Structures are given as structure tokens and as C-alpha cells.
């Protein structure tokens, strides 16, 4: 590689890193506890599992559960009925101040057998809620989320330019070399290169899937204004039904339409994910891979008939598949622990990069590379 080309790559690596490192450190540090969100919520008693029942219990009426939730918050609206394939004995009911409000006002857990309320998730409070907001939008809404997405793009540029620099840097060094007898700066430079190249693919995948996740509001917005609008077009000129029909009947109808799938969540009529006249049941597959992908099934809210269903477009599927790859929640607790360890190594890569920049020598890159070549040539001469 020509020295002038290398110099450009070095400048790219330096400046993309300088800009994004502070935000990446924030994301890594807040992301660390978020990996164990589920476990921490259970340990704190925020989330509860349905108790084990000795006798073979029946199933509670879903409409009675919805009515119970509505009675608890009379001014609010039930927005979503949520299922969890890993927890078949529970239903979750999400409410908002209005049917279309993007903020949650209550998230109830019900026993799917007895219909009893098991838990009321404490929203927007505690340590984990702060971690989540700092990680998702730094309390700056969609603008904050998109900004973090842009920082993620800079990270990707930083990682790729780092790989380009790795080759010439390693010219005469063996893989994994950490020159401990040299200055502290050289030692940290070696460590930065080692840890960076070893964790490269994981860091790049988690970074880029994070970028895709920052686009979730625009991505679903596009789906709503195109595909969902087409699905509901037949009812556009009808007035909304005076009374909402049975949610239980809608769930059953969606299940009959897609017998090989299971319910992930169902949006209620009037919600932006459903349309004015319909329930929208989002079905998921039953294998590890297909469970990540959703298929919306539209059910007439008055007649409980399935009126339309179609697969999600590629851009929604890409978003849905990027979620597990960012969260690391698809391979049990051992995978989460590995995710955390890799995050810690990533913090070391970011921290050492920052250290190297702060301790940078005011010598041009040409001079440094010249030194490196002389010095490695010297090493070779000694070895021979």
C-alpha cells in the first residue's frame, strides 16, 4: 500500500473514532446491564412468572382479561395483547392514555389459566429504565436515536479503517504480540490492535444491527403508510364500528388462518399497527429462526373474520432479524454471558484507542512507519 493511501486510512480511523468513542463507551456501559434485562427484572420482582399449578388448568377468557385491564384504568385504552411463546401461561396487556399513543401507561401480566392479574410492571422507574433511555435515545427522542445510529455508522467506518491499518502495522510482528518490555504506549497499541482484530466481527455485527434498530420507527412508519394502508384500503370509507368485537374471537380466527404459527402480539382497532376496523394479529413461527419473523393477520373487529394477511416486506424482516443479533438474547444465559464479556473487551478497545489518541506523539505518520520498519528490520537482523 502506498504511504499516502495509508495516511488517508489513518486519518479516517483517527477522526471517526474520535467522534464516536464517547458515545460508544456510553452504549457499551449502558448495554452491559441491558443484556441481562430479563433476569434483572425477575430478580427485582418487576416481572413475574405464572405460578405452577398442580391440576391441569383450563384457559381464562381473554375478553374478561381485557375487561379487567380496562376497569383498572378507565380513561386508558388497551393497545396490545402480548403473548410469550416461552411463557404460554401468561398474557400481557399493554395500555396507553389513548389507543394510538406511543407511550405505555400500564403493562399488566395476567395468568392465562385463572385470568388473575399477576403483575403491574413499574414503568419508567429504577436503574434499568435509566440505562434503557440512555442506550436508546439519551432522553432526546427520535432525534437522539437517529444520532446514535449515525455514531454507529462512524463506528463501522472506524472498524473497517482499523482493519486496513492492521496489515501494515503487523508487518513483522507475530499474531498476538504484546511488547511488554517496551513503553506503555507501545504496549497499549499492541493490545488495542489485538483486542480489536479478535473481536472485529462480533463488534461490527452488534454495531450494524444497532444502527438498523435505530431505524425501527421510520421502518415501521414506512410499512404502516404503504402495506398496512393497502391492507385496510377496502374499509377506508366505512365508519369505525360502534362496538369493538371479541378479542378472543380475533385471536382464535388468526390462529385458524395460520395454524402452524403462534401469536406474538395483537394490536387493537384504532392503533397505528391495526387500522380503524380491525384487530391485527402479528403471528410468529415456531422454530428458532422463524420465531424472529412476524406475519400480520388482519381480523375484522366486528365479524371476527380474517380479511387479509401478508408476509412482512424485506426491510421489516431485516429489522426483526437484527434485533436478536444486537441483544444477544437468542441462545440462553451462556450466550448473554459471552455477550457481556465481549462488551467488556470492546470497552477495552475503545478505552485503549482513546488513551492512544490522548498520548499521541506529535510526529507524522510517515516518520512513525519508517521507525517501525527500521525497528522490525532490526529485530529480523537480530533473529538471523
Amino acid at each position, binding site marked *: 500500500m502506498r504511504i499516502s493511501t495509508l495516511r488517508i486510512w489513518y486519518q479516517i480511523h483517527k477522526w471517526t473514532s474520535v467522534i464516536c468513542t464517547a458515545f460508544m463507551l456510553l452504549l457499551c456501559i449502558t448495554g452491559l446491564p441491558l443484556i441481562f434485562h430479563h433476569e434483572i427484572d425477575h430478580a427485582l420482582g418487576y416481572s413475574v412468572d405464572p405460578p405452577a399449578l398442580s391440576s391441569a388448568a383450563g384457559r381464562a377468557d381473554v375478553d374478561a382479561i381485557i375487561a379487567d385491564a380496562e376497569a383498572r384504568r378507565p380513561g386508558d385504552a388497551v393497545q396490545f395483547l402480548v403473548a410469550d411463546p416461552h411463557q404460554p401461561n401468561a398474557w400481557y396487556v399493554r395500555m396507553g392514555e389513548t389507543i394510538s399513543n406511543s407511550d405505555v401507561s400500564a403493562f399488566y401480566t395476567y395468568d392465562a389459566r385463572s385470568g388473575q392479574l399477576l403483575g403491574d410492571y413499574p414503568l419508567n422507574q429504577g436503574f434499568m429504565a435509566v440505562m434503557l433511555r440512555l442506550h436508546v435515545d439519551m432522553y432526546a427522542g427520535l432525534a437522539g436515536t437517529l444520532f446514535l445510529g449515525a455514531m454507529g455508522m462512524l463506528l463501522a467506518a472506524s472498524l473497517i479503517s482499523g482493519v486496513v491499518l492492521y*496489515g501494515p502495522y503487523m*508487518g513483522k510482528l507475530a499474531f*498476538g504480540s504484546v511488547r511488554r518490555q517496551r513503553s506503555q504506549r507501545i504496549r497499549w497499541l499492541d493490545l488495542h490492535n489485538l483486542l480489536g482484530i479478535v473481536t*472485529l466481527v462480533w463488534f461490527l455485527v452488534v454495531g450494524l444491527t444497532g444502527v438498523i434498530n435505530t431505524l425501527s420507527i421510520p421502518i415501521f412508519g414506512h410499512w404502516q403508510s404503504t402495506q398496512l394502508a393497502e391492507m385496510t384500503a377496502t374499509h377506508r370509507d366505512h365508519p369505525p364500528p360502534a362496538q369493538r368485537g371479541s378479542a378472543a374471537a380475533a385471536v382464535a380466527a388468526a390462529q385458524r388462518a395460520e395454524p402452524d404459527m403462534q401469536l406474538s402480539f395483537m394490536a387493537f382497532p384504532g392503533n397505528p399497527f391495526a387500522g380503524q376496523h380491525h384487530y391485527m394479529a402479528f403471528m410468529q413461527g415456531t422454530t*428458532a429462526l422463524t420465531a424472529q419473523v412476524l406475519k400480520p393477520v388482519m381480523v375484522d373487529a366486528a365479524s371476527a373474520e380474517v380479511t387479509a394477511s401478508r408476509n412482512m416486506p424485506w426491510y421489516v424482516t431485516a429489522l426483526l*432479524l437484527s434485533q436478536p443479533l444486537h441483544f444477544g438474547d437468542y441462545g440462553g444465559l*451462556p450466550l448473554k454471558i459471552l455477550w457481556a464479556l465481549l462488551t467488556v473487551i470492546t470497552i477495552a478497545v475503545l478505552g485503549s484507542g482513546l488513551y492512544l489518541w490522548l498520548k499521541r506523539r506529535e510526529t507524522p505518520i510517515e516518520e512513525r512507519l519508517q521507525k517501525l520498519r527500521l525497528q522490525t528490520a532490526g529485530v529480523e537482523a537480530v533473529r538471523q
Partner: protein
Amino acid sequence: MKAGRPYRIWAAPLALGLISGIGLTAALLGEGWLDIVSWTALAVPVICCAWYSFSDRVN
């Protein structure tokens, strides 16, 4: 500038990248033994970092 022999420099990073890719994908495709493939594969870069960072080899 001369970049040395590419194979010597890139063999280990390529292998680690491939192993990481397998680790990231396996558990997504299924459960059971594929989870174990993911755990084993993603443990490789973690162990590799620890080994070279903390070993007292003189380079």
C-alpha cells in the same frame, strides 16, 4: 510499502472472523446443539483475548 506475507498476517484474523460468524449465526438457526455451537464458537475470541493479553510470553 511492503506488507509482509499476507497469509502470515491474515490467517488468524480470518479464522477468528469465521468462527465469530458461525457463533453469531448458529443459535439463530435452531436450539439445542446449535446453541452449544454458538457458545463454543463465541468463547474462542474471548479466550483468545485473555490468553494473549495476560500471558507472559516475551515477544
